């Protein structure tokens, strides 16, 4: 087991290195760099000399391999550099938004789990009845309705019928839980509904498979109460693939809520990403993508370990 964990951890390195190389090259392929972006906005006459000087200051005049190695060397020392646009350390830029994004991702995941597991189980138990159909339509609709539109509808409803709007400024949970929740619960619902769809379907199909297993028939035959069969025997076994889906979605919720954040006017990692892409803020884009990829790879690894823990039949070599 220990050997397996070690090997998996080592395998993360090439994946993350690959992500780093790709994003490093991607941002640099985009026409126009940050220096041009900044001075183009000012409209004043700029000499070529000034542009070159600015590039040299940001280290953009060095050869690509050198820039990459310096970036990697920084990461090894936990030094992610500074944002090319604001000049503030990247850790700071990310930290002030991370709290919001993390909380939102956690809340949306909770919404998704609370919807998915009961609904998916119910649909599996009542397969091919109207209950099943309603749940399936509900979850397929969740995949179809854009969460940014759901957000617009929510805001519109509040505005038209209640003359109220969710707070615009983020307040940390411990400072004022009420303010905090009345801002974040709506995006969490809009996004959570969408993400519940995949998990609901996964729960349903996993349950359908498990309910046909021999040990369920044995449990029924020995007269076990249906509730116990469900919770102890069926759900426990059906949850594995659901864990995977939920875990991986969580990783993407952290950095991929680009559009929803826009609608709810949230200053999270998604917005930061869009801003830094349009400003060609190389260092910040690189750091953000690497962060999301890291969380994704790590969650993937964690879920696999969870498998072994939940299901004693799985033993990794």
């Amino acid at each position: 087991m220990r050997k397996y964990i070690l090997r998996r951890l080592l395998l993360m390195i090439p994946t993350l290195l690959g992500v780093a190389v790709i994003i490093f090259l991607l941002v640099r392929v985009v026409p126009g760099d940050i220096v041009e972006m900044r001075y183009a906005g000012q409209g004043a006459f700029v000499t070529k000399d000034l542009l070159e000087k600015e590039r040299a200051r940001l280290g953009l005049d060095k050869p690509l391999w050198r820039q990459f190695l310096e970036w990697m060397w920084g990461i090894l020392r936990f030094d992610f550099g500074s944002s090319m646009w604001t000049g503030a350390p990247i850790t700071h830029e990310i930290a002030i938004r991370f709290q919001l994004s993390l909380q939102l991702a956690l809340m949306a995941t909770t919404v998704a789990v609370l919807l998915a597991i009961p609904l998916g189980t119910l649909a599996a138990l009542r397969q091919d009845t109207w209950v099943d159909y309603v749940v399936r339509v509900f979850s397929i609709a969740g995949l179809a309705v854009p969460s940014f539109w759901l957000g617009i509808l929510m805001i519109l409803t509040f505005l038209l019928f209640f003359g109220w709007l969710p707070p615009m400024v983020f307040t940390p949970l411990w400072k004022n839980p009420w303010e905090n929740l009345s801002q974040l619960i709506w995006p969490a619902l809009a996004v959570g509904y969408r993400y519940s769809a995949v998990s609901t379907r996964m729960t349903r199909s996993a349950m359908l498979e498990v309910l046909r297993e021999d040990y369920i028939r044995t449990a029924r035959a020995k007269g076990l109460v249906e509730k116990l069969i469900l919770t102890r025997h069926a759900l426990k076994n059906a949850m594995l693939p659901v864990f995977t889906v939920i875990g991986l979605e969580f990783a993407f919720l952290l950095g991929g809520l680009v559009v929803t954040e826009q609608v709810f006017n949230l200053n999270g990692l998604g917005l930061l990403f869009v801003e830094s892409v349009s400003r060609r803020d190389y260092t910040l884009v690189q750091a953000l993508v690497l962060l999301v990829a890291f969380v994704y790879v790590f969650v993937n690894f964690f879920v696999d370990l969870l498998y072994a823990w939940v299901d004693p039949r799985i033993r990794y070599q």
Partner: protein
Amino acid sequence: MALNKPLDAVAEVPGEAYRPGWVRAVVRFSRRRRLGAAGAAIVVLMSLCAISAPLIAPYGPLETDFAAQLRRPNVDHWLGTDAFGRDLLSRLIYGSRTALLVGFTSAFLGATLGALVGVASAYFGGRIDLGIQRIVDIFLSFPIIILALAVVSILGTGVFNVIMAITVPMIPNSSRVVRSSALAVREMPYVDAARAAGFGHRRIIFRHMLPNVMAPYLIMLTAYVGQAILLEASLSFLGLGVQEPTAAWGLMLRGAAVEFAETAPWMAIFPGLAISLGVFAFNLFGDSLRDALDPKLRTL
């Protein structure tokens, strides 16, 4: 002659007139999978709308009427007008062209290229497989929207660049799913037989393996159309997709729709409904298709 008798008798049962195979398949599919059939019906309707847009749309998609700005739904403009006095219904009808064009093209390209990579990866196995799968791993650890944004910022906006931006993140996804089916196909005796017969790699991959992973391929294709429409809407909503004045659903939700949402809510409601209905129909159809073709396949 005697042997033919029972067969003739079956053919003569009233109401069971001869129908081509695919018609029977369609009838059976719609009887057994009502939801899927409903989805397929909406898809067909949407495609008809897109094809006959100039015939059924009451106004041109770019026709502005500054005397009729922000009109609420009425007899002349069934779904109201936008900030430029453009008829919303007409723009929605023309928008279905953008949605379907982007949806079908990028889903087809993404699923097909992915299937090719997946089958090749499974067929060659060993180091090639390992190498390809590590690259796929790398791409899978980007959120789709972030990868799409990256491609858009390189290529620029506009319909064809958006198609590229949506296709790229689909390839690794589809290759992973198809590969897992292709691994089983590779072990089939007929693949060995083909190799023993001295066929080349290309012929075995295209003629022997690809046709046998059609089920996951078709399922993904339908699911991807819905996802692609949604992604196009998201990109256009961010202002990074299809550009004004082209009629596109996501684009219609941007800017004025939000600005005037309080006074002209129809501008924010109907395009969203169109996106939802379109994606919903494709997903409904894809879902039933999956149940029908491959009940054990869990991925989406």
